[in-house]
């Protein structure tokens, strides 16, 4: 079980890095190409501006998943700084479980939105199905929920281990 989780972690990190780098570098090159094309050729690629905005959504979502993997989501930690260590673990556990629950709820309703869009047949970039690009939202929330579930599991295990007295 532990090995499976570790492998998943490694693969996940690799996929994130690949996605982040390729999304960002595509964004830089495409955005600069648009400026060059507009000024030299008179007009840029028609689909590019819309595509750039979709890239941004994807980059933001993948970035948010990466941020939760590294525990770098923006947060206020006034009280947890002042707590004694034992309570710190408890408060981390509660907040992680809360985050996991909220993200699961978001993922569920976002996937409903994506399915509705699929049924409705909305399109972007001319004739591409919109739901494919929108699917990043439920997937990202789902992955973030997963990260916080794993984190809570780890905290719980730590708590139990501490409580078994050493012989």
């Amino acid at each position, binding site marked *: 079980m532990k090995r499976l989780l570790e492998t998943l972690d490694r693969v996940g990190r690799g996929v994130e890095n690949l996605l982040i*780098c390729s999304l960002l570098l595509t964004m830089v090159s495409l955005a600069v190409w648009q*400026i060059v094309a507009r000024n030299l050729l008179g007009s840029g690629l028609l689909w590019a501006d819309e595509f750039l905005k979709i890239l941004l959504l994807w*980059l933001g*979502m993948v970035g948010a998943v990466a941020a939760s993997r590294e525990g770098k*989501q923006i947060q206020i930690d006034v009280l947890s700084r002042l707590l004694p260590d034992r309570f710190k673990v408890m*408060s981390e556990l509660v907040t992680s479980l809360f*985050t996991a629950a909220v993200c699961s709820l978001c993922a569920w309703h976002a996937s409903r939105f994506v399915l509705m869009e699929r049924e409705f047949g909305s399109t972007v970039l001319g004739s591409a199905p919109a739901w494919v690009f929108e699917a990043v939202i439920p997937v990202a929330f789902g992955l973030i929920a997963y990260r916080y579930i794993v984190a809570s599991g780890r905290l719980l295990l730590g708590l139990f281990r501490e409580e078994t007295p050493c012989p």
Partner: protein
Amino acid sequence: MPLIGLGLLLLALFGAPLFAIIAASALLGYWHANIDLAALAVEVYRLAEMPVLLAIPLFTLAGYLLGESGAPKRLVSLSQALFGWLPGSLAAVALITCAFFTAFTGASGVTIIALGALLYPALQQAGYDEDFNLGLITTSGSLGLLFAPSLPLILYGIVAQQTDVGKLVSIDQLFIAGILPGSLMLVLLLGYCLWHNRHRVRQQQTRKVGPGRALREAAWELPLPFIVLGGIYSGYFAVSEAAAVTALYVLVVEVGILREIKLHQLPVIIRQSMVMVGGILIILGVSLASTNYLIDAGVPERLFVWVQEHVSSRLTFLIWLNIFLLLLGALLDIFSALVLVVPLILPVAVGFNVDPLHLGIIFLANMQIGYLTPPIGLNLFIASYRFEKPILTLYRATLPFLLILLLCVLIITYWPWLSLGLVGR
């Protein structure tokens, strides 16, 4: 409902990620108003409808790349070569380079880490007293927030554009509005540094290289402000396009030409920068949902009516605004504060005849102080961690700088011309 609100507040204070708190409150609001919860995703998808948002990842990438390259070192030696003749010159160098750098990195703590590592030992070696050094470096970490193309300035513009108040708020106007207030902070802090070190003997040999060589060495970085500002104000680029050009330029220079960042380091730096961007964008995404709910529920109007009942004049409103923002800045980071609070107070401020551009500058200036306000100002912790000093030492060391910035905030708030004069409003 109030009980649940209290619960969410407690969870936030105990360190639950803010985006989760905001998402939870949006979902609750929708549920309460019988709106399909899938609407949350519709709002998050609006991230893909604002072209100017592209500026955020692109400028952040440029900032992180600059931070990892030799640019901070070249910048320091250039300012030293140019201003080395002043008494207390190294302190002046620290302020100016940090301001320049923060404009590009958006006060993410990168400045303290990248430049502090260079400037702190240099100041120590030059014999400045410990408290002064620490205070200076910690303060400089958020100086330059009001200068283009700083991220918070861009984000304020974006949020203000989303909040329709009938007055145009464009990002290029915000960039101009920030110039004089930002310079005021810089000048007053410079003055304090010179005054504090007035008895010091002039450093004989602070400069290591001559101005000519320092200029040549920094030749690749120097055009950056001109690319950004020149491009935008000549009408050649939109803000997001200037960001794309800056990112590509920095990428080519630091990785391709100077080769200070090796190709294999690039994915790590890109990941780091996008972790920060992801953290900001997801908060923005879910707060679009919560704000939308608040506006539908008429909260800004009710807030305005309530404030009007208790506050009679523009002046008293500004006083309360300052107090509120200082407290807010001490508690929330600048990005969350922007997306959460601006949609609520902007309509109120406009009702009291405060220009949206002026409000933006007041907002950011107050937030900048928040970085230094005990007990939890972010820069205090970054500096305490980076320089291995107890946090209490940092509270004491930053106090004089904090007071000067407070004076600046008061001037900025009560003298609107400073923000609006150059824009011509």
